[in-house]
C-alpha cells in the first residue's frame, strides 16, 4: 500500500480538531471521549486502507465501512466530509434540527454512509452479513467494522464474533476501540472484558493489538495477513478523550459540551504538534 504516513497524521489531527470544534459549538454536547479515540482509525480507514469513491457512493465494489459505535459520528462525519462525501460545512450544523449529521447515524440523511447505527451491539452482525454477501459473489471488496469495547458486553456482538470465525470471513476486519471505558467508568469494573485477545482467538479470529493512536501501527495491522481464512480483529488501545489533556483517560469525557477556553487550549496543542 502506497501510504503517506505524514499525510495521514495530518488528517487525523484535522479530524480531532473538527471533533473539538463540534463539541464546542453543538447544542447539548457530543460524545467527545469516544470520538477523540477514533480520529486515527477513521483517518487510516478513509484515506489509507479502504477502496472508496465519494463521487459514486453506490459503486458495487467499494469497501464497506460500518461504524457500529454510532455515537462516534462526529469522527466519521469529519472523515467522510474531508474525503469528499459531503461539504465540511455540514459539520457546523451538527445536531441542529433535521441536519445531515447528528449524534447517531441516520443513513437517510447522510450520503454515502452504509447503515444507520447508534444502538450498541448491532454493527458487527451487519458486517458479518455484508462479508457473507461479498463472498457469495466472489467479490474482492472488504468489510471494515469499528466497534466499541462497551458493546462487547452485548450478547449479540458475541453471536457475530462466533459466526465470523465459524464462516471463516477473511474479508472482514473489525477494529475495537479499546479505550477502557463505558459511560459509567472502567469496563473492567462494569463488566470484565479481559482477556480480550484470548477470547477473540478462541472465537477463531486473527488478533493484533496496536496503539490506536499510532498511524503506522494501525496501517501495519490492516496490512497483516490473517492467515487460515480467519477474520481479523484489531484491538486498538486508545485513550478516551485523547487531545483534551484535562479529560484524557476519564469516564467524564464520555459526553459533554466543551467550553470555548478549554477547546481553544486543546486546539492550540494540536496546532503546535503540526
Amino acid at each position, binding site marked *: 500500500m502506497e501510504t503517506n504516513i505524514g499525510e495521514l497524521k495530518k488528517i487525523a489531527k484535522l479530524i480531532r480538531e473538527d471533533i473539538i470544534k463540534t463539541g464546542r459549538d453543538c447544542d447539548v454536547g457530543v460524545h467527545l471521549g469516544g470520538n477523540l479515540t477514533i480520529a486515527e482509525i477513521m483517518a487510516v480507514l478513509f484515506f489509507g486502507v479502504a477502496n472508496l469513491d465519494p463521487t459514486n457512493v453506490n459503486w*458495487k465494489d467499494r469497501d*464497506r465501512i*460500518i461504524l457500529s459505535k454510532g455515537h462516534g459520528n462526529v469522527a466519521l462525519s469529519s472523515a467522510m466530509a474531508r474525503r469528499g462525501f459531503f461539504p465540511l460545512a455540514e459539520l457546523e450544523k451538527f445536531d441542529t434540527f433535521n441536519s445531515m449529521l447528528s449524534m447517531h447515524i441516520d*443513513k*437517510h440523511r447522510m450520503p454515502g454512509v*452504509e*447503515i*444507520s447505527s*447508534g*444502538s450498541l451491539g*448491532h454493527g458487527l*452482525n*451487519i*458486517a*458479518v*452479513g*455484508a*462479508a*457473507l*454477501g*461479498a463472498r*457469495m*459473489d466472489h*467479490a474482492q471488496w472488504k*468489510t471494515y467494522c469499528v466497534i466499541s469495547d462497551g458493546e462487547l458486553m452485548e*450478547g*449479540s456482538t458475541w*453471536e*457475530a464474533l*462466533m*459466526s465470523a470465525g*465459524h464462516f471463516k470471513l477473511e474479508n472482514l476486519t473489525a477494529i475495537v476501540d479499546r479505550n477502557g471505558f463505558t459511560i459509567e467508568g472502567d469496563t473492567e469494573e462494569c463488566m470484565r472484558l479481559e482477556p480480550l485477545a484470548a477470547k477473540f482467538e478462541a472465537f477463531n479470529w486473527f488478533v493484533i493489538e496496536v496503539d490506536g493512536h499510532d498511524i503506522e501501527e494501525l496501517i501495519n495491522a490492516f496490512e497483516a495477513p490473517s492467515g487460515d481464512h480467519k477474520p481479523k480483529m484489531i484491538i486498538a488501545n486508545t485513550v478516551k478523550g485523547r487531545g483534551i489533556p484535562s479529560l484524557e483517560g476519564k469516564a467524564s469525557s464520555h459526553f459533554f459540551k466543551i467550553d470555548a477556553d478549554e477547546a481553544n487550549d486543546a486546539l492550540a496543542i494540536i496546532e503546535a504538534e503540526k
Partner: protein
Amino acid sequence: MKDQNKTQSPLVGLASRKAFGKVIVELADQNMDIVATTADLTDSVQLGGFQEKFPDRFVNFGVAEQNMMGAAAGLTLAGKIPFVCTYAIFSALRACEQMRTDVAYNGLPVKIVSSHGGISFGVAGATHQAIEDIGIYRGIAGMTVLVPADAVETAIIIRAAVKLPGPVYVRLNRITEKTVYTNEFDYQIGKPDLLREGEDILLIATGAQVGEAIDAAILLSGAGINAGVLNISSIKPIDQKAVVEILKKYPAVLTVEQHSVINGLGSAVAEIIAENNLDIRFMRHGLMDIFTTSGPYKDLLQYYQLDPEGIQEVVLRFLD
C-alpha cells in the same frame, strides 16, 4: 372454499410453510439475489429444498436470531434480498430490535418469513406460540405485514413480497390451514377479499382463521344468521376505503384472529371503524390478553373458541 373455476393449484392442501418452501425455490431460480437464512430451523421453516438447490445462497446462523436478523441487513449491503426464516415468536421478539433498527429503520429489502404463527405449534405452549407478532410488526414504520390464509395465498404473497423494495413480514403456520383459495389470483397488497357476502354480520379474519370463519358462516346460516366473511391478509397496509365500503353494508362485525385481541387484526379494524365514524356493532375475538396453554392444535382451537363451533357461539352471544 372460494370457487375460482380453474384447474386447481398443486399447492392446494399444503401447509402455508410448505407452500413457501416450494415457492422460494422457484423464485430463487429466477432471481439470483435471493438468499435464505435460518437459525437452526431449516426443516421447520421448509428451507431444505432451497439449501439443496442453492447451498451457496443459504446461511444457517445456528441458534442466534439476533445475529441472523442483523446479518440479513448486512446482506443487503451486498445487493442481496435475504429471507429471514424462523418461528414467529423468535423473529418478532428475540430479534425485535435488529428487525426494527437494522432492517426497518434503514428501509432494507429483508423478507421476514415466520412459520409457527399463532397457536399453530399447539403442544409447544406459550414459549413457542406467537400471539403478539402481528402487533409488534404492525407498529414498525415501513413494515408491510402479510398473513396468508392458506397455501395458495402464501405463494401469491411471497411473490408480491419479493417485488416490494422494503421490508416485509409474512406470518405462516405449522399446521395445514383449511383451503380458501384453489388458484393463484391477481393479488394486490392492502386489498381485502370478500369471500362470502352476508347481511347480519361480517366476520373479518386473517391467516388460518379465514377458513375457520368460512365454516362458522356455514354453521351460522343453519341457525338463520347470514354472515359475510372478509379476508384481510394485508394487515399493513390496509386499503381503508375498500374496507369501509364493505363495512357500511353490515350492522355488526366480529374480527377473528389467532393473536392477542390487543394490537392485531381486531385493533386494525377498530381503528378504521373509529376514524370513519361508522355506526356498527363491533367486537374482537381472539386471545383475550392471556398467555396460551399447550395441547394439540385442534383442542386449542376448540378451547379458545376459534373453531367454527366456537366462533358460532361467540357470534350468537354477540348478537343476542
